[in-house]
């Protein structure tokens, strides 16, 4: 019996990455069936489009997070960067009367990348845990913005029309009983982010270098990788994607607030962890992150269908997070015991 168990776990472990994703997909499917059983209205194109729209921003930045976590680091300042980049871009557009979406993206991405590089340099120089460093820069970036640039709110009236148009743009529309439905144009930047990240992680040497560094910084150094460069790349990348996400976000809400976004990092980190990205680095997949984030947003937007209040959301996400972290640590403990390390 034990042998069989050992055999099974061995096999599962072998295909662990796939297993994580399979389990998540299963959970999503099961949950959808359950919600649909309670409330058939759930099964509609409208809900699907809705979830895509609300999760698109998270997926974009989740891709950046994947890279940073693969490198063995973490970034909790990305929302601050997203806000910084998009706020400054919008502010400049309003002040300079430039009404161009390209300008918004260019300015935001430029700033976001710079702030990401600042994170990388600080992590490298201070030699402190990235969590501490980026917790600091989270406040620093936000503070710099509200103190030195502006802390005004810009509502629907003043927002440049290029942004509001992009926010409400749809790719194609469907006529349903509820009316005309469209798929948000945000799927374009989202798809680009997903494909690009997948390509970088699995088909470029920089990407493999980042993974190598997350596996073992010393071995990566011995292989001739420059750890500082890899770090600059990973943190710069999440900075750039955060900035993209910021522009998508202000377009969608059709307003610029100086204090939104910041503080909601943890949900996305939770999504990545639920999706099987290892917090100590070196392992994680694009699909996992997408599924992890999907679960969170699915819960978020379907509780109404179940007639539950939104406070249940935290409960479910928390349970999932604890479960996934618990399973990982249990697996670790088993492995450690096999290697005769007793940590308990």
């Amino acid at each position: 019996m034990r042998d069989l168990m050992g055999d099974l776990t061995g096999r599962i472990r072998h295909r662990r990455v796939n297993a994580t994703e399979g389990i998540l997909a299963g959970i999503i499917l099961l949950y959808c069936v359950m919600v649909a059983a309670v409330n058939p209205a759930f099964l509609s194109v409208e809900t699907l489009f809705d979830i895509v729209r609300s999760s698109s921003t998270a997926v974009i930045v989740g891709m950046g997070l994947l890279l940073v976590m693969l490198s063995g680091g973490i970034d909790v300042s990305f929302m601050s960067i997203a806000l910084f980049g998009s706020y400054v871009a919008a502010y400049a557009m309003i002040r300079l009367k430039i009404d161009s979406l390209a300008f918004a993206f260019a300015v935001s991405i430029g700033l976001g990348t710079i702030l990401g590089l600042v994170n990388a340099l600080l992590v490298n120089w201070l030699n402190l845990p990235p969590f501490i460093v980026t917790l600091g820069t989270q406040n620093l970036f936000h503070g710099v913005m509200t103190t030195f640039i502006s802390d005004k709110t810009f509502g629907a009236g003043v927002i440049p029309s290029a942004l509001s148009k992009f926010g409400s743009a749809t790719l194609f529309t469907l006529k349903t009983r509820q009316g005309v439905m469209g798929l948000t144009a945000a799927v374009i930047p989202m798809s680009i982010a997903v494909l690009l990240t997948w390509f970088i992680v699995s088909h470029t040497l920089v990407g493999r270098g980042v993974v190598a560094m997350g596996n073992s910084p010393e071995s990566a150094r011995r292989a001739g990788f420059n750890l500082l460069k890899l770090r600059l790349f990973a943190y710069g990348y999440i900075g750039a994607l955060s900035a993209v996400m910021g522009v998508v976000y202000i377009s969608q809400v059709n307003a610029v607030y100086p204090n939104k976004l910041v503080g909601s990092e943890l949900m996305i980190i939770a999504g990545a962890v639920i999706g099987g990205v290892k917090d100590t680095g070196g392992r994680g997949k694009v699909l996992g992150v997408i599924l992890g984030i999907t679960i969170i947003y699915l819960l978020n937007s379907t509780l109404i269908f179940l007639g539950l209040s939104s406070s249940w959301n935290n409960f479910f996400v928390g349970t999932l997070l604890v479960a996934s972290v618990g399973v990982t640590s249990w697996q670790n403990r088993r492995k450690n015991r096999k290697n005769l390390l007793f940590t308990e």
Partner: protein
Amino acid sequence: MSNLVLQARALSKKFVGVQALDKVSLGIETGTIHCLAGENGSGKSTFVKTISGLYQPDEGDILLNGNVYTGLTPVQAMREGVQVIYQDLSLFPHMSLAENIALNRLRLSGAKIVDWKKIWRIAKEQTEKIGVDIDLNATAMETSMAGRQITAICRALSQDAKLLFMDEPTAALTRQEVDRLLKVVQELKNKGLSVVFISHKLDEIFRISDNITIFRDGKKIGDFASGQLDEKSLAYHMTGRDVRYPRYRRSLGDDTPLLQVKGLNKQGHYQDVSFQIRPGDILGLIGLLGSGRTEFALSLFGLNPPEEGVVVFEGETVRVASPVEANRLGIALLPEDRGSQGLFKERGIRENVTSTLLGRLASGFRALDREKEREIAEEGVKKLRIRAPGIETPVGTLSGGNAQKVVVAKWSAANPKLFIMDSPTVGIDIGSKAEIYEMVQSFARGGMAVLFITDELEELMCNCNRVLVMGNHRIIAELDENAMTQSDAERRIADLIGGSAGKEVEV
């Protein structure tokens, strides 16, 4: 001078509290196999890492193919054709073996895009070249020590090396694999490559080396042509004294068995294993890796429980289902698979040595007794001659062999009734081996029972008063105390393991 691929000139390197290299000058000729020998902590690995650009020497410079370097980087070293199989293997645990083998080469080639077909081609080519069969899809973490070592070897061979450093590449390999590896090394030499080979197994050194350089305490003692030395003089130069191994005879009067094992079975692991062991016995268990001996040893420690059979410990039938239980009964295991494991690298020697004792040292109010811990750790350091600045030195900074001595000290500190030692002297220098034998034998004289698993006949003969020979997953012979005192004992055992060696061993 032009036939020197490497010339190190007066290299010095100091770490906190240790002069790891002290004005070492050394030349490696093109197309030769050059062995570095020296005790644990004498600076061999530090020398290697200095030449590969990982450490910057405090003084001295390095000539590679005639080019002078004072601040050599890893990439420069690789460009000059320096490749290293590091003692700690330096693998990426969550990456597949295929990628582990090929990534460094891709990196050096300056490729920007990863071609997975190429990765697989490189990996397959290399494993075929040295004729091994490993699961290239598995991650390094899921692979046995031998498999990892082979991966590291393949990785180094996959690149166009001019100078290949092999820092104890054979520590975890079976005899056949060692043979194959040494053959590959000879072939490389014939192709004009230079190989620097580090090993504590003297027979390997004499089998392949052209030149031997001996290190002691970070200094070079001398360069010798291989023919100038024999095992005895080499040992003398390494340690500065004559090394003699003590021979063990059991002297205890009490013959009640401590452990009886009857008909232990586990499909595919071991079959029909029966024997008994008394206090004061050092029962040798020899057999090639893959003969089932490690699987069997793990089962007595609760890690690989048998499907059938009876285990009687101190007169009571027991089921050892977990290491915790084994610990409670008084059974300890010094694992074979400990190259990088069994230790907390960032923690000090003291914490590591006493980590098996947590329960026991915790007095009533569960506070650890610091004073007692220090005593135990200091005793271990002294008895096993662990070379370290102090007992708080992080284990990660110790030399490979000294880290292994910490593992030995750790499991000895538990003072068990039955001590299972699986290859306790792998990677340990010949001088320190004597200390370990001394320690094991004094344990046995004090009434401990020891199950001593080893590959080396010499150490089997001097430590064990009884011997079991394992082959093909079962015990094929048992030599009792009487048989062991016969003059033909060593030959008999050698024939037995030679005979069971025919079967290919899977990694």
